[in-house]
């Protein structure tokens, strides 16, 4: 690998490790210092490697440089402090080594994950910070993922870091009593991170896929750690594998969305399906049924290519239970679609009209679908209502093709 390819690659994998270790060592209030040292390390690498060549072990080289920079920083700080307040005993801090062992890296990253997912921080900022600090994304990449300007993202991250300082959030694992609650927050953030990639309107396919895989990597870290390897974590990872298995099939060459029914099932990745099934199996211990268990089971049925009554009956019953513990408009609409498949479109129409999600384009799309083949006028008028609410050209194209099909069927 050439320097210009290797550095971005290492940046993605190593930047977050260095930051996590340094932050934990210095304290969260010195996050900027940790970021400066980490960035500086990569700058030094870019300069040195371009004329000296790439060292035999680039990662170890980076860790060494980061360590020295960190030690210099601590030393300067200690000298400063000892001059300002001489009565303070010389801290042995700078004597201590900066520990970049695999175990300490993993511990630091896990603790960082819990710190970032603290309930005091806004969900959007949590995702931004996760991307920047846990996944090593550049500011411009975070900005593109959110379709926001760099300034907006910088401001958002700055405010989040300020919040961390003001709330005095510690970089540590929550205690046992608090673990389940805090873990819930971490899982929510990981799932949002995944959804950001999976459902994002950004046209950058590579970036979107990266977001999904980073979310899965973070979830893997939780599973590899004994105290966080809980059933809901396995269920969430399973869910993400099942979704990811359709990644290639759900968009066309131009990035347009291909709906489930129209996907080329040969593009569904059976390897990822199998991994999803494995983690779903791992999730079946314990006695708490989380929403991730239900969503993963629903996703499992969607990986089955057959279009049987049994499949849809199972999906319907899972949605019935999911809605009881975690309502969302998307689940309500999907449940009604499953009802049409398992029971009848006529019954589903009655149920759909009770939902009254009149600000939601998918509500009218669903009604349009359900009325198709039953009532031409109703189908057409619902699709047209959906068109007025649509935000992207890709969605407009999908609805327009449904209206065209409707007219041909007549």
């Amino acid at each position, binding site marked *: 690998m050439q320097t210009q390819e290797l550095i971005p690659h290492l940046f993605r994998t190593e930047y977050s490790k260095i930051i996590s270790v340094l932050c934990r060592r210095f304290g969260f209030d010195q996050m900027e210092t940790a970021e400066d040292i980490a960035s500086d390390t990569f700058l030094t690498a870019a300069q040195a490697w371009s004329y000296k060549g790439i060292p035999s072990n680039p990662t170890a080289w980076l860790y060494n440089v980061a360590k020295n920079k960190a030690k210099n920083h601590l030393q300067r700080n200690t000298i400063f402090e000892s001059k300002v307040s001489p009565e303070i005993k010389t801290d042995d801090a700078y004597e201590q080594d900066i520990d970049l062992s695999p175990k300490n890296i993993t511990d630091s990253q896990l603790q960082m994950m819990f710190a970032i997912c603290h309930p005091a921080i806004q969900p959007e900022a949590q995702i931004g910070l996760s991307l920047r600090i846990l996944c090593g994304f550049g500011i411009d990449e975070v900005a593109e993922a959110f379709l926001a300007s760099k300034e907006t993202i910088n401001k958002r991250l700055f405010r989040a870091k300020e919040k961390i300082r003001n709330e005095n959030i510690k970089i540590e694992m929550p205690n046992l009593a608090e673990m389940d609650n805090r873990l819930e927050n971490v899982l929510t953030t990981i799932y949002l991170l995944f959804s950001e990639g999976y459902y994002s309107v950004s046209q950058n396919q590579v970036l979107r896929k990266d977001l999904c895989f980073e979310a899965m990597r973070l979830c893997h870290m939780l599973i590899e750690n004994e105290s966080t390897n809980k059933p809901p974590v396995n269920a969430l990872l399973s869910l993400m594998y099942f979704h990811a298995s359709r990644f290639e099939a759900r968009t066309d060459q131009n990035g347009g969305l291909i709906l489930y029914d129209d996907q080329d099932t040969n593009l569904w990745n059976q390897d990822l399906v199998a991994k999803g099934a494995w983690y779903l199996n791992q999730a079946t211990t314990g006695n708490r049924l989380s929403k991730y268990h239900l969503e993963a089971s629903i996703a499992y049925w969607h990986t089955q290519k057959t279009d049987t009554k049994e499949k849809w*009956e199972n999906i*319907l*019953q899972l*949605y*019935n*239970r999911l*809605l*009881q513990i975690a*309502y969302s408009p998307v*689940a*309500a609409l999907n*449940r*009604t679609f499953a*009802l049409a498949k398992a*029971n009848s479109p006529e019954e589903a129409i009655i*149920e759909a009209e*009770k*939902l*009254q999600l009149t600000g939601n384009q998918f509500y009218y799309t669903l009604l349009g679908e359900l009325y198709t083949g039953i009532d031409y006028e109703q189908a057409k008028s619902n699709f047209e209502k959906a068109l007025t609410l649509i935000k992207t050209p890709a969605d407009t194209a999908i609805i327009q093709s449904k209206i065209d099909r409707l007219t041909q069927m007549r």
Partner: protein
Amino acid sequence: MDEFVLIFRHEDGNKVASPEQIQIWMKQTMDWIGGIAAQNKFVSGTGLPFADAKIVGHGGVVTNGPFGEIKETIGGFITVKADSVEEAVEFAKGCPVLQGPGNTVEVRKIAKNDGVH
């Protein structure tokens, strides 16, 4: 928005129907509850198995529930959110329990913790 409890009164299904029939009722009940949950109006609920039911009377006298003879036994309940008792009644009308003649769903508003009730 108020909360209402819908109380089902019916015979012990195991005494009057086949396991297959009971499975059909079970699905209908799940679909009915799912429909309420899809409107974000479901709060909680549970079935109440007839087995092992006891009645504790005056003076601590314990008897087995005489459910076999009684048609209107409480078989379960759910709590829903509704703007009015009329809306709660509309939910109740969909309850599959009502397919059995003599069965009822009782709709009762839940007292708010406002010091009045």
